[in-house]
């Protein structure tokens, strides 16, 4: 009982927030909710967000609806030392949005060269095959940085974060989250 009481006490001590701007006001919400409510993006364009969602969804099913684009966009808008992105600890130097833009541009350049259309318009099988080649760094004539494997790792991490790195993600897999201090907006 002592343990339960202590944990319950600490849940109330949550600090910090993942803040989205709605109508000029900062609102705490899930990226999933931000996407559903079409909260304006801060850094990425809508077109860039769509391209990012396509790659992320192919890597980690569920990432699109979980709000991966809003997550990445919001995190690219904060100072680097406040960012929660996986690339922060993977030695990618800020500004982080440069990494995503370069990655998306090169992915689509490659897809245009090989299939005559961008990644988002490939079939599911074509997307899967493209990522498989990217994972092992075998797309020829790749214009980096970022390197192919670095993009695979970073985009996969973002997708895994929004789908599985949350209280909601744990609950879906039947795993107790057991927070000392719950993430604000369940992040």
């Amino acid at each position: 009982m002592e343990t339960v009481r202590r944990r319950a006490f600490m849940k109330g001590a949550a600090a910090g927030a993942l803040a989205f701007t709605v109508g000029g006001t900062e609102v705490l919400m899930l990226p999933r909710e931000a996407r559903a409510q079409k909260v304006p993006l801060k850094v990425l364009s809508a077109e860039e967000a769509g391209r990012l969602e396509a790659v992320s969804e192919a890597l980690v099913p569920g990432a699109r609806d979980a709000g991966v684009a809003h997550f990445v966009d919001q995190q690219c808008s904060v100072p680097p030392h406040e960012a929660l992105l996986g690339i922060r600890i993977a030695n990618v130097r800020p500004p982080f949005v440069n990494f995503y833009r370069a990655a998306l541009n090169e992915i689509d350049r490659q897809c245009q060269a090989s299939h005559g259309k961008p990644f988002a318009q490939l079939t599911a099988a074509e997307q899967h095959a493209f990522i498989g080649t990217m994972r092992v760094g075998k797309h020829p004539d790749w214009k980096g940085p970022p390197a192919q494997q670095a993009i695979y790792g970073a985009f996969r991490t973002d997708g895994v974060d929004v789908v599985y790195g949350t209280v909601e993600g744990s609950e879906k897999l039947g795993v107790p989250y057991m927070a000392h201090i719950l993430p604000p907006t369940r992040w």
Partner: protein
Amino acid sequence: MAIQEKVDVAIVGAGPAGAIFADVLTRAGKKVVVLEYGPDWDDNQLISSEIWGRRIKHAPRFQLAGRNNPGHGSNAGWGTGGSMLHWFANFPRLMPNDFKVKSLYGKGLDWPISYEDLSPYFDRIADDIGVAGDAAAERRWHPVAKNYPMPPLKSFRHGDIFVDAFKKHDIPLAPMPTGINSTEYKGRPACIYDGWCHVGCPTGAHATPQWTHLKEARAKGTTLRPYSYVTRVLTNPAGDRVTGVEYYDAKKEQHVQPAGVVVIAAYSAETPRIMLNSVSDKHPNGVANRNKLVGKYLMCHSGANVWALFDEDVQNYMGTTATSWMSYEHYDKRHPKKGFGSAWYLFGAAMKLNVNIAGARPDLYGSALTDFMKRAARGLARVNVYGEVMPNAENRVELGSDKDEFGLPIARIIHAYDQDAIDLYNDSQDRALAIVKSANPREAWKGGGPVPGTIHLLGGTIMGTDASNSVTNSYGQTHEVGNLYLAGGGLFPTEGSVNPTNTLMAVSLRGAEHMAKNFSAIAS
């Protein structure tokens, strides 16, 4: 530029080494200021999330080079507590042979001190911070003088499931000594095994500087200045004394902090950066770098891991990031069939979904990843083997071509494994896979690729007998400038293959007490 009031001691970095120096010197009646680059974390800010936990690590600001670069971001801490705020809390110590590698094996370097010199400090650190473990079980491998103040932590099925497999391979085990409370200790509660140690534990069960030395130091008068980015150490015109440090605050305003003694405890990459940028006519290579050894002999540990998927619920979401079990049985540096260096087994750590479990099969994506996550969420377990890497002067920190926002060069980290390290890693992977398979999992596989991953960052400002072979003496006092001390894992001439924090803290306590005892002579 603002000139601060002179203090007895200015310490750069509020991690475990800096905190110990602050605690000891403040107790000795000295006026101490600690300058910390990052924020002053409060326990209420330590959110239980792999995602939010990234905030307590260093945002990248380094140039990287070399075939196998450990980088900096996942190792270094940012803010009070330093890397110990996100440490796993494994608390082993280096073995006696680690201090005499050159003498015993003809490779690597020797420390200027022995295990016996540090032994009483290991015991005192254990009492200071609270260590849970079973010293009697460890004495088959090395002389642990005193028993630990607490019994071992509780173990869970994801670790215990391998115990019989190790027995089958004639590998004795001991409970991992941990810097986590198994019982209430010094007013701090016992662990509740929720597995969030590495993102910052707000309960106080996890022995971070916030709950131990830094807390004590601040209570006794140490001044902490967060968001203070130190750029240079300042010296007198003769170049034989440091006079203080230069730093920028959160508003990007420049300050000078005059001090009788300066201690740089800013981790293995940033300590050399500050020293190399501290150029003057008397120190054209950077302060205390006449021998050009500052930045040299940077080391990391190699990390081998083998995964196993069981059909049963192994409770992998429970426990601590410290493992339940460990073994030094294959620690002899000549034990591997191929390669050279110590190997150390550890297993039974809690896992979280988006890092450990998704990371166990980094090759999977799409529906295969979805399927794996469902199967592994409760059934995944792991055995790790940490490997030693010999010191090599070519692995180093130097000043990069890029500049920071104040116009000074940032650090460039250069690192590559030698063949001994790669062979040791592969040997360890093979041994661990054989052990894991003996536990009869549904699936077992090696993590990582043909070249090891990297863990920890050590060396770069090594200690030694004199200026011909090192930057500092055994206390961390630089050979060239008597009132400039260095502290932390950067002092290690060799690294063994265990987590470094225990040894780092013992070395820091020894150095801080030497300074306190001889303060008048050092500071005058």
